[in-house]
């Protein structure tokens, strides 16, 4: 175990807390840059998805994990991003115009849904966001002149300053750099007043407001930022699968996105990446496992949805901190070996709170 003696305020706001972090993240950086040159085309293609879902995961994590607001409608922002990108690119705009537009338009949609969020909490907010998703899906389906309706829309590879991201490797680097950029942006926010205000709202709205945090402003801001990141993810998603249609942005897609943050680990950026990797790898595992299952079980339609559902419930019950929480425990086990004791992470007794305003 490592104890860090702090001698300077600067140590608290550093990007990397100690030399170990610099080493491991440096190594990770080297591996990520080298990856496309050694891995097979298929794996690279899966890495595209991991990056895209990580960006979306960051967005949702900001809202759910750090601001404590729930959303069951994030596929709608994914759709806004994807269609904005497809349409603007179709109109001949370069990526540096279309991608920020996708982010901005999604943010605007986020503000629209953020407004009811000022009055709603918990299950009611979930229902409102869910309804929003259905509305957006319906608009896309009906507005055929713009979106192509159920017929869908083709998307060409992204273009930036005359360069076309048409190879797996170049698109990988596009996705990776946007992932790193969004991650850094969130880390920066979380160590500044804005990020602290989000966390304050998550833990106690009444306290936050008594400390001078404008709840309406910061909740709306969180929705807008979350939607913007999801919109960027949506734009990349459109380029990745080259064909978008309304059925990719249904309620089920939204639930899949929530799965990322819950399975990954609420309240951690690592969790968003772990969760993204998990939901990309899981379907592959299922399809491999199918070969070994009795033909009856393998034939069940929607096997994947069932596995997702069961895992989601299992994580909520047994590991509310998600994969990241599991990872922390394993790491602590190694660091403390052989002194790890059972129940070390169990929640301390929490004090009773009364219902009325304290």
């Amino acid at each position, binding site marked *: 175990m490592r104890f860090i003696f702090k001698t300077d305020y600067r140590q*608290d*706001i550093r990007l990397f807390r100690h030399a170990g972090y610099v080493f491991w993240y440096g190594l990770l950086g080297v591996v990520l840059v080298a990856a496309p040159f050694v891995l097979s085309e298929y794996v690279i293609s899966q890495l595209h998805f991991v990056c895209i879902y990580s960006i979306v995961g960051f967005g949702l994590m900001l809202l759910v994990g750090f601001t404590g607001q729930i959303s069951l409608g994030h596929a709608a922002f994914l759709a806004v991003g994807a269609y904005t990108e497809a349409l603007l690119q179709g109109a001949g705009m370069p990526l540096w115009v279309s991608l920020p537009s996708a982010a901005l338009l999604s943010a605007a949609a986020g503000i629209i849904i953020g407004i009811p969020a000022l009055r709603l909490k918990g299950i009611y907010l979930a229902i409102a966001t869910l309804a929003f998703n259905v509305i957006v899906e319906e608009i896309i389906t009906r507005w055929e002149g713009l979106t192509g309706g159920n017929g869908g829309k083709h998307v060409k590879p992204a273009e930036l300053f005359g360069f076309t991201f048409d190879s797996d490797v170049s698109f990988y680097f596009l996705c990776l750099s946007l992932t790193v950029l969004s991650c850094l942006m969130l880390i*920066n926010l979380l160590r500044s*007043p804005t990020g602290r205000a989000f*966390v304050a709202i998550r833990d106690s709205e009444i306290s936050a407001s*008594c*400390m001078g945090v404008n709840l*309406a402003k910061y909740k709306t801001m969180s929705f807008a930022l979350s939607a913007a990141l999801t919109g960027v993810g949506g734009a990349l998603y459109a380029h990745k699968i080259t064909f978008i249609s309304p059925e990719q942005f249904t309620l089920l897609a939204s639930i899949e996105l929530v799965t990322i943050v819950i399975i990954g680990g609420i309240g951690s950026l690592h969790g968003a990446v772990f969760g993204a990797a998990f939901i990309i790898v899981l379907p592959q595992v299922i399809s491999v496992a199918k070969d070994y299952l009795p033909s009856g079980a393998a034939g069940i339609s929607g096997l994947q949805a069932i596995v997702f559902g069961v895992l989601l419930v299992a994580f909520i019950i047994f590991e509310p901190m998600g994969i990241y929480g599991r990872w922390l425990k394993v790491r602590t086990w190694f660091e403390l070996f052989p002194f790890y004791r059972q129940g070390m992470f169990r929640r301390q007794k929490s004090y009773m709170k009364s219902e009325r305003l*304290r």
Partner: protein
Amino acid sequence: MSFFRVEDLGISFGGVRAVDAVSFEVNQGEVYTIIGPNGAGKTTIFNLIGLLYPASSGTICFEGRTLNGLAPHRVAQLGIARTFQNIELFEHATVLQNLLIGRHRHRSTSLWQEMAFLPAVRRAELAQREAVEKVIDFLELAHYRDGLVAGLPYGVRKVIELGRALATEPRLLLLDEPSSGLNPEETNEMAFWIEDIQKELGITVLMVEHDMNLVSRVSDRVLALNEGRSIAQGTPAEVQSHPAVIEAYLGGSD
């Protein structure tokens, strides 16, 4: 112009007149205490001052400014901080982070600057930490600085909440039962801190408190409340010996 004044304040919940035509005035630099039996409406007065409930009658004036009708977060921004009777900390954050949130009203950077963590943000953050570190020294919290609030003992959390309120650098500090749940030693310590807050930091304190020892020790003036109405006002000794106060406490204890 008075420093802080409440006039004819009132609110009902259903049929209960929780606060009824209460008026009082707090002078700059004093410790003013509200006492009263359980359910007298003391916490409700704090919630009305914090604009968490809209008052059904009356006005609240702070430094010549009427608070009624403002958004709740504006109260803190004007320089009024409070603690809660049952502790309302940010449980999943460290002590340091809790205190830093107290600095929110002194925020000087914009969202865009923060996203890139520009040098201006870095400078502002260092300044915030310096201010918080002063509070940590003042309340001797250094030992708990990086610990999660959720795991700390009740007495310590009480002090952290006081620290978070102090971190806002308030001009008026509202303390709701600062000694409730504390043992005699901790209560004694709390009394010292309240005295220091008044004398060293020059912060005006409006406090709700049950412990009459603590009340007589630190308060300059006391207001007694019963069933939402003010029944006596004066020095601690005067109020304690006032027949209506004795009556209210005896009547409430059976």
